[in-house]
């Protein structure tokens, strides 16, 4: 059945050096149970292909191009009535209609890549073709990393790809929310030699407020994984979101949790706005548009707290792997 099994992938990045040991290939899988407000890969949330509209490439204003508007049989593309200057989007898409559309005639007629489809169904063999090519270049430490979205959102496909990777002796890593059915989680996790698991907040209700889900399942999964004698390297990750999870109380609670479970490595990631343009391309509003990047002092402060509890804390891409 592996032949017909397909996964929805929104990017494969060939040369990644900050997502696990060595040089890695990153597979971005679409679909995620969380709705983090600061998400830097918002195109990974929905489990269906989506159209990205890239305003800078669109020639509607500059060259009066309106091929996509004319081509859409559903009238889903319209001129932005409030357009004033180049900061504004030129066209508006009715996402509800686009979501249901199967033809995407607009894409074929956009010659400037202003409209682009995000998310492609791929077979295990197609993924393995890329990975087997890249395997040559990983060096002795590198391998494949699964990210997203949430890789566990497509458990069957993930499982099938992992088995194929395992056969070819590839080093496998994952970036997961651990918001996963516990049985599935414990079944698949042993395949990974290396795992980043995100903990966004220790308080379950606050966690729910900003990500849409409580954290109980996540914490339970981490505990259960550790108890199961997971043999891979497990590193906790936490995006530092100002005014949300960066207070000492939360950090101390997280450190306490890690201590109790027996975990000793965490990678804190500074907030950045690099995902902002993708929110716009999806026609969504990014409420972190005006937030500034995490200050270095803040990162060091958090790092010092962890270190004082004898937890190895790495900041940003400054990691030992």
């Amino acid at each position, binding site marked *: 059945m592996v032949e017909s099994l397909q996964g929805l992938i929104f990017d*494969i*990045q*060939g*040369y*990644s*050096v*900050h997502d696990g040991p*060595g*040089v890695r*290939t990153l597979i971005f899988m679409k679909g995620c149970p969380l709705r983090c407000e600061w998400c830097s890969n918002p195109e990974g949330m929905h489990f269906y292909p989506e159209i990205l509209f890239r305003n800078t490439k669109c020639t509607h204003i500059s*060259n*009066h*191009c309106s091929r996509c508007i004319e081509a859409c049989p559903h009238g889903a593309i319209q001129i932005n009535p409030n357009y004033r200057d180049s900061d504004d989007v030129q066209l508006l898409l009715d996402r509800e209609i686009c979501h249901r559309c199967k033809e995407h005639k607009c894409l074929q007629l956009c*010659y*400037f890549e202003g409209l682009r489809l995000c998310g492609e169904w791929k077979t295990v063999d197609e993924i393995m073709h890329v990975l087997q*090519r*890249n395997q*040559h*270049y*990983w*060096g*002795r*430490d*590198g391998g494949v990393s699964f990210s997203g979205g949430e890789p566990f959102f497509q458990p069957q496909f993930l499982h099938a790809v992992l088995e194929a990777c395992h056969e070819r002796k590839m080093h496998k890593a994952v970036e997961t929310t651990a918001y996963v059915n516990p049985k599935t989680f414990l079944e698949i996790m042993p395949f990974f030699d290396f795992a980043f698991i995100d903990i966004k907040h220790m308080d379950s209700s606050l966690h729910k407020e900003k990500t849409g889900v409580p954290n109980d399942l996540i914490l339970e999964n981490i505990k259960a994984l550790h108890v199961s004698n997971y043999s891979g390297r497990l590193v906790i990750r936490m995006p530092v979101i100002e005014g949300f999870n960066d207070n000492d109380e939360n950090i101390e609670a997280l450190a306490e949790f890690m201590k109790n479970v027996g975990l*000793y490595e965490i990678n804190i990631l500074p907030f950045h706005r*690099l995902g902002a343009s993708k929110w716009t391309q999806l026609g969504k509003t990014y409420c972190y548009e005006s937030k500034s990047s995490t200050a270095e002092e803040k990162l*060091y402060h958090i*790092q*010092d707290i962890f*270190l004082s509890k*004898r*937890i*190895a*804390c*790495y900041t940003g*891409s*400054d*990691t*030992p*792997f």
Partner: protein
Amino acid sequence: MATPVVEQRQKLLAEILMEKGIPIEYRYGKEHEGVSDREIKNDPTPRANQLKNLYLNSLSSVNVEFPYWYTREWRKWDGEIPIIRRAKALKAAFSHLTPAIWPGEKLVMGKTYYYRGSFPMPWLSNTFFMAKSDDLYKAALARGGASAGEEAKFGAGGGNVTQDFGNVVSIAGKFGIRSEEVPALVKLAYEWKDKSVEELGHKYEMMVPEYDLKEKIMRSVICMFDSGYTLPQGREVINYYYPLAYGFDGLLKMCRERKDKVAGRADGDGLVGIDRLYYYEAVILVIEGLQNWILNYAKEARRLEAITDDPSQSKEYAEIAEMLEWIAHNQPRTFKEALQMTCLIHFAVLNEDAISGMSPGRVGQVLYPWYEQDIESGRATKEEICELLQLHRVKFTCIDAFASTGVVGGVLSSNTFNNLSMGGLNKFGDPEGNELEMLILEAGMRLQSTQPTLSCLYDDKLPEDFLLKCAETVKSGTGYPAFMNNQIGMQFLMGQYGEEGMDITDARAIAIGGCLETSPCTWKPLTLNGKEYWIPGGAGQPTSVGVHFIANPKVLECVLFNGKDHRTGEQVYPPHNRKLETFEELWQTFCEYYEMTVDCLATTNNIQHDIWRKNNMTVINSFLKPDCLDRGLHIGQLGYRYNATFNIESCGTITMVNSLVALKKLVYEDKKYTLDEMRDAILNNFGFKTAKEVGSFSLLSQVKREDGAKYDQIHHDCLMAPKYGNDDPYADSVLRMYEDWFCPMTRKYESLYGKKMYACQISVSTHGVQGSVTLASSDGRLAGTTYADASMSAYPGTDRNGPFALFNSATVWDHSMSQNSQMNLKIHPSAVKGPEGTRKLLDLTRAYMRKGAFHIQYNVVDSKVLKDAQAHPENYRELLVRVAGFTQYWVELGKPIQDEVIARTEYEEI
């Protein structure tokens, strides 16, 4: 530099990880062994820095001292045997060079008394000055009255004299000459009327039946330049062995003994047996000239010693004098003397001929005997050696070349390509990458400059710490070292030079000449204080010679337009009158036009080179290179060990491949467009204004015509057609087809030495110039804009699947069929940050090499910095970038090349 707090954190982290048993080599914050902490000592020594700053402050300057004395002596010896006449002229010229020594220098001498000096050689090429004599006179006259304080502006152009100022006249927007010397320059040019290699060569090349086609090809810039009189030598590896092993007096003795042995004896060779007498006599004359030159510098050092008040500076002048007085006659005793010896030999060779790419070769292995003995005996410390190597960089960065003017700007971007090779294997197959080579890398990091550029002969056997140090040096932003595949290079050498006796041992002596020209070399035994060493050095003729830079996309354009060049309106090739109904027919016609091109360029250039070898043969390089001294024969008599060095250079390979792929897909397979529709789109530049209308040949500033929309669809389809660099077999198979035809095809052509030619696939800066004369192409590239650079780099922005896919595409063919291949990759600094980043950069390089690739080099730079440097050149005098095989100061590059570097796909983290 790490602050105490940061160090404390790193220590804590390391402790925690160690407790948990995490492998210690990956400990956070600690550099790998053998990689020095750049944060602590990345500065040059004050002495080296001061001398480098003088360079940054100096203009590219020309005087006519050398050509004056050369010409004056030459005139005296009318009727003399050519090699003797030339040797006498060279001796007179060297004997009359005015010495200039700067305070602080430990290594001295140079091409001229100017810091960044050079001079024209009218005996090679003179018509430019005759044609321009009126303009030059007028400029000189006008300049006579200019205000004394007017100064050249630094900024865009760097040290190039881009326009006249003060009492200075600009030649070709590059060199400055004092206006008082202009009349002498013009007079010298006229003295060589009808006698220069250029003029004589032209007289005889016109007798070739295919000369008419050749001229049309030159006018359409399908070929970049004639090689016979522009750069008759270079892109080769020098050999310092003989003077280092014997000293100049030893060589004189050797020549006199050999002269007695061969005088009047043919020894079975009825053609050139007797010539050996004249050869040895000529070598004696030039060595005497070199000794005069060195001793004139010694005399100047003694004068300065006497007049200098500062006792320590005065002592340094005395040391210089003593060193020169010794090495003018004898084998060097110390590392410093040996290094000085190599410098002066290098300058001597460069002054003998118009040369670009005289590579010093594997200096770290050539000078190792002195290094080892100095360190062992405590005569020198590593720090002292490292400073000398920095001073060596300054000396080499000052090297300028006065070649025919279009060549200097259009091809070379003012670089002179003195490429130093490191690593590889020794004579016995053991890995190099010795301590001295580590110091060469260190000096290259600390004193960042254009020359010598560095190349690592990558071999799996090389020590890891050496390779990591190479990767670390790349990261420092210098663009060097480039990585060349040692094993692939050796395979090429065995294939090309096997007929001349190249075996595995000589193949191991491999080094890079010029940017990345694999060059034949050999080993020689050197004895120092009773200990024997085997040192590598060049043993082959120049590879700067042959057919130079065929614009592949322009040939394809001519195929599409029945042999006509639409830019000039000229019918270049005879019309093929074919309908081009199948892809095979298109390809066949391309091959036919291409071979016609190679043929007419090979025959005409052979004649130019033959004039050169008869009247302008090298004497100095011809006594340095094995086996001239042994055999008593110069370069033109096949005295060198390896002579099959003439090559055929292509440009724009990937642009041509992508164009063929688009035609195959859109016209021949999908039949979406007819060939006529494609021609129409190309002639109409896909609805864009021409680069000329826009006033810029830059990729980044092309503008759409008002009515351009009707070409949108075809342009889109052309851009979206499969492209090289994405591991797409559809596109890559065309590259494979091309290489499997091109490399063997070049071997059908013969140099004047009766040897087969071969493929050379680099672009230097010609992808900008030849792109500027080419119409739009079916890959979607617009008219007048640059081709893809190098031969394996993807066209900017078309490699969408990351570097691994690009690497796979690049290695679909056997790189050892060609002298080289070339891949330039731009990486954002964030992607290779920290000690882990260094390792990852090495992993990436190693993986590409293991695929059988020949070459890769990196620009570790942020495009934002480059854009700012373009806007504010005055703030970036020292910014270095890697272009197509060389490192150059950003400000000294032309704008189209700057734009191309900016537009290259940048690999970074998301």
